[in-house]
């Protein structure tokens, strides 16, 4: 079974999406030129989600990738809701009042977000009323709290993450008279999702991360080469600080059982996540909710299963770590991607591949024969292969697609091998997950001129 290059391309490009920030009077005033995003499923259906939106009542752009587990319900809900929570957290008091008054008097609402969505990125219609009510409660509380201080982005991000996770939890506990919705909120709460969200406003780049997706900045060095700067910390067993944090939050008696086989309680890979109430609620609460819940929930072995050594919940939090970075002209792009990418590619390679793709310059290490014994035939083979690698750059109109092509198709030389690509993409559904994970990528390109101008103004 063999996929032709056009078949491979149609698979790779099925979910690609590009957005260019519109220019005004021929000038781009945003520090973001635009972004490319794409995802390649391994699970059926895919459990990753992505979101991108421009804040309309404040400045800035939001972009995020969400890696779901135990189903896609939580990732879907977070991808729909989180940016509203963030946007609301950033809104000044007057705007919140204005919005509340509009809702109160049945007037048209000020639009808060402009979404940039691929046609496959859907919103749940049924839950929108429920989600809206939760959001409204949140901004009403913000209005009541009115600190009078200007909103700090970092704080807003943390608050939004925590508040949304809290709302997910509450909605599941309260339930809904509508049985479909009731089941939905329970599925959202019992499944989980990591989130890695970037907020870009001028030279201020904030990355809020919960879980093991990752944000990486592509930096072009003076000699034209590319290097990678991490803008997030993975929340998993490989992160000592994270292991330390979990251990600090629980009695010493649990130290041994907290992290087993590099998993939280021996079960969960990410150490922070949305949903996953099985790692957050008390055993009593879980039992009560499951028992009173619909039959489908009761029949699900996973939801009924209580993690071993479950003594002092919560074990899991959705609170993000936020990194603030001031953009510099050499910061050319930001890659947000779920762990499906980072498992297969080193960040340095990601920086190089994207950088070369975006600049159109292919910095292949030049070949020098030097003192080696090389025949004409060998050299010819090597050159043909390098040529194929360059030509693959031109096959893609989307940096994320290009990166996926490399992540899935790279051979040991770091070149895209069509045969390998074909094999990986034609794996049957049940096998695909064993060879690769869902991959979701957003590549945000920065406008160095605007960044440079902002920088010199400051």
């Amino acid at each position, binding site marked *: 079974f063999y996929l032709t290059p056009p078949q491979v391309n149609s698979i790779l490009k099925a979910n690609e999406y590009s957005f260019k920030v519109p220019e005004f009077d021929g000038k781009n005033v945003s520090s973001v030129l635009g972004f490319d995003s794409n995802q390649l499923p391994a699970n059926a259906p895919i459990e990753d989600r992505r979101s991108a939106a421009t804040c309309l009542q404040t400045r800035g752009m939001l972009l995020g990738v969400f890696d779901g587990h135990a189903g896609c319900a939580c990732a879907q809900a977070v991808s729909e809701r989180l940016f509203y929570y963030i946007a609301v957290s950033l809104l000044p008091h007057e705007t919140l009042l204005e919005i509340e008054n509009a809702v109160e008097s049945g007037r048209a609402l000020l639009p808060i977000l402009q979404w940039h969505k691929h046609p496959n990125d859907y919103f749940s219609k049924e839950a929108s009323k429920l989600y809206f009510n939760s959001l409204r409660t949140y901004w009403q509380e913000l209005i009541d709290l009115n600190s009078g201080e200007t909103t700090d982005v970092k704080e807003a991000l943390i608050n939004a993450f925590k508040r949304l996770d809290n709302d997910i939890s509450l909605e599941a506990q309260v339930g809904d008279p509508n049985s479909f919705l009731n089941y939905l909120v329970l599925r959202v709460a019992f499944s989980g999702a990591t989130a890695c969200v970037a907020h870009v406003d001028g030279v201020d780049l904030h990355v809020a991360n919960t879980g093991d997706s990752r944000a990486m900045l592509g930096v072009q060095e003076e000699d034209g080469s590319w290097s990678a700067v991490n803008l997030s910390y993975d929340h998993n067993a490989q992160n000592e600080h994270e292991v330390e944090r979990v251990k600090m939050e629980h009695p010493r008696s649990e130290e041994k059982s907290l992290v087993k086989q590099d998993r939280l309680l021996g079960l969960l890979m990410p150490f922070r996540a949305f949903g996953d109430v099985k790692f957050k609620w008390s055993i009593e609460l879980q039992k009560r909710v499951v028992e009173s819940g619909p039959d489908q929930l009761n029949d699900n072995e996973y939801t009924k299963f209580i993690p071993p050594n479950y003594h002092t919940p919560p074990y899991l939090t959705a609170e993000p770590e936020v990194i603030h970075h001031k953009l510099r002209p050499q910061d050319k792009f930001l890659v947000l991607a779920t762990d499906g990418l980072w498992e297969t590619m080193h960040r340095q390679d990601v920086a190089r591949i994207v950088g070369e793709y975006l600049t159109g310059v292919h910095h*292949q290490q*030049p*070949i*020098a*024969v030097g003192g080696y*014994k*090389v*025949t*004409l*035939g060998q*050299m*010819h083979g090597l*050159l*043909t292969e*390098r*040529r194929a690698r*360059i030509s693959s750059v031109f096959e893609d109109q989307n940096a994320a697609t290009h990166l996926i092509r490399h992540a899935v198709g790279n051979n040991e030389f770091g070149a895209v091998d069509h045969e390998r690509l074909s094999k990986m993409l034609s794996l049957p559904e049940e096998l695909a997950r064993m060879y690769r994970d869902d991959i979701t990528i957003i590549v945000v390109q920065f406008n160095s001129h605007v960044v440079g101008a902002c920088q010199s103004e400051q």
Partner: protein
Amino acid sequence: GAGMFLHLLSRVRRRPVRPPRWSAWMRCRRSAASTAEPHPIPLPAQAQVVICGGGITGTSVAYHLSKLGWKDIVLLEQGRLAAGTTRFCAGIVSAARPVAIELKMADYSNRLYEQLEQETGVTTGYMKTGSISLAQTQDRLISLKRIASSLNVMGIPCEIITPKQVAQLHPLINIHDLVGAMHVPGDALVSSPDVSLALATAASRNGVQIHERTSVSHVLVQKGRVTGVETDRGHISCQYFVNCAGQWAYELGLSGEEHVSIPVHACEHFYLLTYPLKEPLASSIPTIVDPDGRIYIRNWQGGILSGGFEKNPKPLFTEGRNQLEIQNLQEDWDHFEPLLSALLRRMPDLEALQIMQLVNCPETFTPDMRCIMGESPAVRGYFVLAGMNSAGISYGGGAGKYLAEWMVNGYPSENVWPLDLKRFGSLQSSRTFLRHRVMEVMPLICDLKVPRWDFQTGRQLRTSPLYDRLDAQGARWMEKHGFERVKYFVPPGKDLLDLDQSKTFYKPDWFDIVGSEVKCCKEAVCVIDMSSFTKFEISSTGDQALASLQYLFSNDLDVPVGHVVHTGMLNEQGGYENDCSIARLSKRSFFMISPTDQQVHCWSWLKNHLPSDSNLTMEDVTWKYTALNLIGPRAVDVLSELSYAPITPDHFPSLFCKEMSVGYANGIRVMSITHTGEPGFMLYIPIEYALHVYNEVMNMGQKYGIRNAGYYALRSLRIEKFFAFWGQDLDAFTTPMECGREFQVKLEKGMEFIGQEALLEQKQHGVYKRFTMFILEDHDTDMDLWPWWGEPIFRNGHYVGKTTSSAYSYTLERHVCLGFVQHFDEKTGEELVVTTDFINQGEYEIDIAGQRFQAKAKLYPFSSLFTQRRRKDEVELSGYQRE
């Protein structure tokens, strides 16, 4: 640094006996004592000639100058001799060149190098291996056959061979995709640095002083003449300076106070060296040129040396020399990949051959793929030889000889106008232009060149104010001296082939289009924008203008005001330095119209020959006038309606010039000439009126059936009328007597003029070549190859000359070729006088790519055929009929 490659050479060299390196040789020769850094010999304070550049061109110029008897010569080299492009050059000497003068240079070089070792005692590595040029397509084979034809008549052995014969000559070649090939057994290989050293050695023995590690910073000029050079080691006074600086020639030209434009630009050039084959190649194995694969392959010490001319060259040193030193150029294997593929396709057995090195050797290219030689139009005594387009070794010997002759005798022994520096002006010196153009030129070396091909880069530089208007009406353009000129107009709704597909040696796709333009010129009236013509105004306060011009021109210019005279400026040998029409505007001022590409040459000829009299002024007004050629029997009607002036032959006879109004525009210079022999007028329009006059002419002309036409129609008209064009048919080696223009010469005008003596001599003793018109008899326009130019002419089976231009005559419905006939003694080969009888009493054939077509020779145009149509023709043609 520079020694790296030589070091490499020596590592693999099998035969240990090689000439020592130049520097060592110099040391031995100068003083046995100096062992460490040699003390440089001080520069002389003065010399007759200073040559800058110790590569193949510089050493060849020095060698030939010293052979011609000039001894007081200093050659300066900034590094080591033969250390630049010459050192890295592939060393192929091949006469397989399409341009006649290049072919002659290569042939001479080959003969020079062959005996150089014997002459100098310096090993040159000369090896006569022969070369095989391969054809993968029929069109390529045609182009090879054309070259073979001209090689054969030059006496250079050359044969078109089958693929099977190729296999017999070279065991490694894959012949499956070949349709044929050309074998030139006399082509050779040399070690180019050694050739250069041998030339230097001989020159040095003849007294030429050679100084290495001396760079010229600039050339000193006083009153438009070279007076000396400034170097990093001091000053040298000199009368002549020769810029042989290769890829640095451009910068050196601009370094002085008086700029000398030398339009050259370097590109990287790559070739591969391998270790020897298991069974080392025989040293006599022929060199392979595979132009369709863009590569050449030669034997190199039992292995191969193979390079090529890729489609996407890498220009370098655009911003000047200091960005990258020549020795630091990198190998670029990825760039070389297509050429390597072509090599392995041609010789699949080489797969297992081990690579030694990929050499990056920059080569210098010119805007038209021909090298640059001659004297600067701006500075007298400033000579140039540069821009060898990666054939420096092939051309170096011959080019050096011609330049030396030029300096010593005032002009070389052959017509080198195609290579003359003055064919360019400062307009070709933009760095951007050069960068873009050389990127087109380098691949063109391998591209198939069909008749009427044009450069695609560096276009739309000079345009007529009507450019957009004409373009919108379907104009297709060609370029001459930077000026866009219309070839023809594609009628609306008609599509021509793509550029690539329209390339043909046969009947072109525009045949019918041009035919209808010609028909319109013959029957109604056409407009051709001819603004590119070079236009000068010469005037004086007194009679100086007339007196000076009478000395410079062969015809009598003391004509009544308002008359136009066809004439030309001749050199001492009576040859045409310029061909022009001159209108006497007033007693003291003249308006001179010359071919487009004469702008620089003609100006400098006038400058050099006119007395420096402040009362005499000369102005280049080319840019001030738009020129419209109104051709056809109804031109007179259009013009008279637009001017309300009587334009009957009584009021406006032929060869007349009048300022008049056309439409609202006043002061339009109208001349009753069309450069074709057809009736009509040239309108010289101040540029701001151009659009107005054009619109008026087109509107008024509608009822007379007016339409636009282009140069292809003009060309067909002038060739069927036997009109010669300078630069194409005429050159500095052609006299009026040889091309039937005696009537344009007034030997008894009561004044001496340049060339008079030579013409008198010819009048007395006859001419040795004769411009002749040939009508192809058994040529099928639809099926046969079309003539172009440069086709050999055979008389009674013997070669007598070559064509210089050709066109299809829509009137005669035959091809017409123009060319020169010579008369060689059958036994001795001596040139004899060509008489009218000799021309008339012969059976002629024209050789087009090896196929011969019968032709009828004529010394005069078909006057009866044309003059019956319209009486006005007679006047312009009257000169011929006077015979």
